[in-house]
């Protein structure tokens, strides 16, 4: 499987992915072998079932949402490019990237892009606001079935009240950023990919 995997991934593709995501050569090849090991159908793309087979996602409360985040709007298959593009959000921010020319397009793993990724996981209908219902859904997924609706509702109300500043009873992206400004997002949303 190993040699076949590396011949399937052409050098030009690796270069393109490197430029787009910032991963190193060895990281890309390593993640490619993970991609192919997940790809049971061996057709070069992953479907939702392939993801659901991962044991850690099956028991994860947010498993479905994470899986959805990999698939672009309305599609059912994701290729390696898309896979890497999503994973690029979790690359640690490097020092030399912080001082980059601000006119150039922001790298996928910048702080605001990381936060945007997390925000989109709450905001399913993509209206750029986390409404009370969306928040309730996420809370319900995280705390399980034993908590009553009213208690969950009061938590959601208080959460929105704490964060909401323009009075629209929902959390916008800017309010989301503000609430998380004390959390070290660069550290929290980074995975130390092995070199």
């Amino acid at each position, binding site marked *: 499987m190993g040699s076949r995997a590396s011949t399937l991934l052409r050098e030009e593709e690796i270069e393109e992915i490197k430029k787009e995501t910032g991963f190193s050569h060895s990281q890309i090849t390593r*993640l490619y072998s*993970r991609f192919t*090991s997940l790809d049971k159908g061996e057709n070069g793309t992953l479907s939702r079932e392939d*993801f659901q087979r*991962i*044991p*850690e*996602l099956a*028991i*994860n*409360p*947010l*498993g479905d949402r*994470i899986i959805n985040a*990999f698939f672009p709007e309305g599609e059912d298959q994701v290729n390696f490019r898309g896979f890497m593009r999503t*994973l690029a959000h*979790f690359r*640690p921010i490097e*020092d030399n990237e912080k001082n980059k020319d601000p006119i150039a397009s922001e790298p996928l793993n910048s702080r605001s892009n990381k936060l945007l990724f*997390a925000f989109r*996981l*709450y905001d399913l209908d993509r209206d750029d606001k986390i409404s009370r219902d969306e928040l309730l859904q*996420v*809370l319900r997924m*995280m*705390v*399980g079935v*034993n*908590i*009553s609706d*009213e*208690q969950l509702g*009061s*938590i959601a*109300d*208080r*959460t929105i*009240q*704490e*964060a909401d500043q323009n009075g629209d009873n929902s959390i916008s992206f800017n309010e989301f950023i503000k*609430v*998380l400004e*004390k*959390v*070290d997002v*660069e*550290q*929290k*949303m*980074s*995975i*130390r*990919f*092995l070199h």
Partner: protein
Amino acid sequence: SGSFLLVYLYIFLVVFVGIGLPIEASAPAYQSHGTEGSHLTNITNTKKAFPVLAVNYEHVRKPFEIALWILLALLMKLGFHLIPRLSAVVPESCLLIVVGLLVGGLIKVIGEEPPVLDSQLFFLCLLPPIILDAGYFLPIRPFTENVGTILVFAVIGTLWNAFFMGGLLYALCQIESVGLSGVDLLACLLFGSIVSAVDPVAVLAVFEEIHINELVHILVFGESLLNDAVTVVLYNLFEEFSKVGTVTVLDVFLGVVCFFVVSLGGVLVGAIYGFLAAFTSRFTSHTRVIEPLFVFLYSYMAYLSSEMFHLSGIMALIACGVVMRPYVEANISHKSYTTIKYFLKMWSSVSETLIFIFLGVSTVAGPHAWNWTFVITTVILCLVSRVLGVIGLTFIINKFRIVKLTKKDQFIVAYGGLRGAIAFSLGYLLSNSHQMRNLFLTAIITVIFFTVFVQGMTIRPLVELLAVKKKKESKPSINEEIHTEFLDHLLTGVEGVCGHYGHYHWKEKLNRFNKTYVKRWLIAGENFKEPELIAFYRKMELKQAIMMVESGQLPSVLPSTISMQNIQPRAIPRVSKKREEEIRRILRANLQNNKQKMRSRSYSRHTLFDADEEDNVSEVRLRKTKMEMERRMSHYLTVPANRESPRPGVRRVRFESGLSV
């Protein structure tokens, strides 16, 4: 003029106590008359007049002395904070050492022997409260996120310091002109190992006042706690070796094994006692008053047990506190929690004060042997080895860290490596057979003075000058809790996708294990099923409700705080839906008002309550509202102390107050 009078009275009090100490130190023992004489059945005894007043000082001598010392220490502490500009410039530890010097000098002038900081007293009585306070309130999240870095600094950094200093001092002693050619390598290494460890007491005392950012704080502080194992092993090792005189390879190997045994053994002992304490707290629902005692006693037992086996007592204490905290806090009442917090802060504060004062007194008392070259070299080497160690280790560590340590961070970590009373006590423990004991003690004291005075005083202006990131003030926010947990799940999932078994994977496994197996044994009643988010939210609302009642903002139909003594915290009062809604509305309104206010989630020694609680409610107003409430409460005495617990499974927003329907 009223405040001047108070200041004069205060000074008089201090002088009174201060003079009292040396005088009673030299007080001869007075025999008691009367009562003892009457027991003699000697007929030849002539009948004395019954003594109406008799002095029996010996009877109370020991406790009297102790109380007097503690009183002096606390009065000093009080005094420093009355002088506003002083405490802003000079850290408290320096002032206390100076006081110790003065008192010691006074005692010496009178002609008595000033007491020295007895090592047994130090290790068994003064040190444990400070460490327990630190361990119980250790911020777990930053600690576990940086535990790798902390361990590297603690273990490798201390080893480097010890060997570098010991080796170079030995080289120094070889030089003829110094006049110390009798000192062999092992003695120097022993000295190096004593002086190399960063001291938690000194670090706590100084860092508390500068409010540095959480990362640097936890790095230095964590290092000072975890290097105890290294210090213990090195000290015992070199002590043994210097008695024997030779070292073999086997000894070195055994030393390494010993290190693992000492550290892991200490942690294991602490964890066992922690679980015992958690298990015990499960059954304390009917005897709330003694709950805090369990926490203190089990922790102290953990410390003593591990000291008994020559394991690391500090690590045992930390492990005990960390392990038992989540379970104990789920079981005990709110009042017990406050009691534990208060007592720990109080004891550790007293301990710290006493330690520094005694350091001053011991300096005056102790036998000294001064050798300019040796002492000055020690101080310089301390600094140099610390700086080199930090820079070198950071270079290696940064390759593995996600958030790198900046130069400023490194500087503070290096500069904050203070030495303190542990080094002194270890030096004092050296048996008198060591020819160099006095010289070592003098050098240790000089190093301690240098680090505490020079580094301690200059670190604050340096932090300002270098514009190092300070601690961010943050109020406990439900948003942060929710989103942090959300991100935890997200990251665990993504790690699963990558097939990467990292930090989040193992944390999730531990959480799962905890939830399925451990919690049901250690948490009382049905609460083990409660998700952490719900517990957090409940505590937050409870705190807010209590605060509002105390400041008089909630209507007085809640005779809550005063009758809370024996109420089972899990008793859900039968509240009508309407009342519940009303309360929730009031809380929400209060939240609107408080939105802009900042609170500090600090575990500092001087402030227990959040800053705005004391700002908002002036003492007088608080007392007035309390009196008002108590008057109204006497009409509500029909509220029973114990309410029946509700049907399990019905979960509502809960208050500890006994709400009348």
